[in-house]
């Protein structure tokens, strides 16, 4: 579905992502884990086009994304939930979702989105900035889903979220995958969440994938060792 080849990102003289290769299958949830500063967020931002790429190739369902701008990537089928949610604080919940709809030329918020996140329907006229962290996270996911993506990118969706809600988010991701048949790439450093949500786990360190295994046979201890100091 999503294929990343020889991905290279650098700021000035320092290279952040180095020759990264990754294939995401249809209907697959891939987790990229690693500590802060290892390049997770840079990877995500460069995939959506927020950060310029120095080299390599990214294709989505056969479409080459490499030369596209962010909004074109979204229209090509990439959805993005950024670190820190970045909802539009002074727009209402409904308006936030509608910004996503605009990309695909729709006007009305589809019912199935509200079904998936009933709390958003309840609060559709509240300003985004007044929601709690967990609700904002749901809003950010709903906003991304409104663009009808084929691949959904989530950057540290658990950051700053209470542990009990983290579990919910993991379930939501699986549900989205099952109901909508899309692929998900999520970057994380909370191991329990990764174990709950992902089909395949990749460890990123200094901008390169250093370890990979499927969840079924994942060696938790080993992954945890990458996450520790």
């Amino acid at each position: 579905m999503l294929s990343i080849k020889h991905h290279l990102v650098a700021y000035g003289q320092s290279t952040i992502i180095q020759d990264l290769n990754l294939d995401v299958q249809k209907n697959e949830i891939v987790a990229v884990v690693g500590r802060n500063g290892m390049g997770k967020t840079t990877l995500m931002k460069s995939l959506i086009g927020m950060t310029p790429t120095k080299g390599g190739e990214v294709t989505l369902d056969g479409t080459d994304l490499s030369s596209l701008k962010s909004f074109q990537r979204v229209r090509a089928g990439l959805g993005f939930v950024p670190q820190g949610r970045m909802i539009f604080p002074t727009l209402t919940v409904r308006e936030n979702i509608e910004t996503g709809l605009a990309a695909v030329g729709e006007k009305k918020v589809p019912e199935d989105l509200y079904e998936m996140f009933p709390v958003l329907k309840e609060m559709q006229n509240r300003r985004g900035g007044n929601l709690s962290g967990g609700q904002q996270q749901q809003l950010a996911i709903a906003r991304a889903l409104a663009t009808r993506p084929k691949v959904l990118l989530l950057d540290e969706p658990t950051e700053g979220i209470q542990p009990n809600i983290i579990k919910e988010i993991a379930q939501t991701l699986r549900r989205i995958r099952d109901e909508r048949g899309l692929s998900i790439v999520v970057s994380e450093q909370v191991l329990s969440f990764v174990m709950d949500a992902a089909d395949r786990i990749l460890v990123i360190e200094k901008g390169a994938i250093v370890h990979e295994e499927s969840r079924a046979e994942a060696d938790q201890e080993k992954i945890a060792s990458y996450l520790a100091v």
Partner: protein
Amino acid sequence: MFDGYTSSELMSIFAMQGFAGLSLFSVFVLMALGLAIIFGQMGVINMAHGEFMILGAYTTYLTSGFFQSYLPGLFGGYFFIAMILAFLICGALGALVEWLMIRHLYHRPLDTLLATWGLSLIMQQAYRSIFGAREVGVDLPEWMMGAIPVTEMVDLPINGLFVMVIALSVAVGVYLLMYRSGYGKKVRAVVQNRPMAEAVGINSAGIDRATFALGCGIAGIAGAAFTMIGSTGPSSGQAYIVDTFLVVVFGGAQSLIGTIVSAFGISQAQSTMEFFLSGSMAKVLTLLVVIGILMIRPEGLMALKVRR
């Protein structure tokens, strides 16, 4: 100061003065709305705003000439066509300018100031070359001239009322566009978080161009309206620029409501002071008061307070 006037005369005068304030208010609103969009929403300091207004005025001038020559029967209604044309022409030029120049400067607001100042010089000289250095006289249809007598003392100028109506319509239109339309949502999303707006599929470059064009188009409408009360010459636009910026900044750059509130405050202050002082001193005092308040409250009247 009021010796020898009857109370009814005084009442009428205050009514008239109130109207004068309102008509100044509508002028300020028209001047400032386009700039409020461009400066407040995009952070671009468009020093050529006045020249865009005058482009609208020249458009009106040409339209009136065209109607006089070819469609004299429809002359009474030419003004509406002129306003639409002014909006379209200024908007188109705005889009072109955005594409050629402004889009390269979004992260350098002070540089937009210099570049658009250069643009204003070019536009002024272009007007001078095309229309001549003299001011042009714009003929108004008969129905726009004169005043409606309300009482013996109080007359309401029709063109003043008309400018008010235009100002009001433009303000309402801008409000609906910014807060009730899909476009407005996109603009607000881009203003709040440009990269994120891109990442939900909004073409922020396109939004920028449309927004700049919209601001210039509104300047064009303002210019068309001002042919009724002001002069149309190559450098007439410069007269507006300081006032316009002060109105926008005083209102709190991000807030359209703030712009309207500040236009109201400044216009009332000025017209009240004009009645008791000479015109020059009223102007100086108004500017000083505005500067003074801005020093105490640099974020303007209606700034959004958000957690940083």
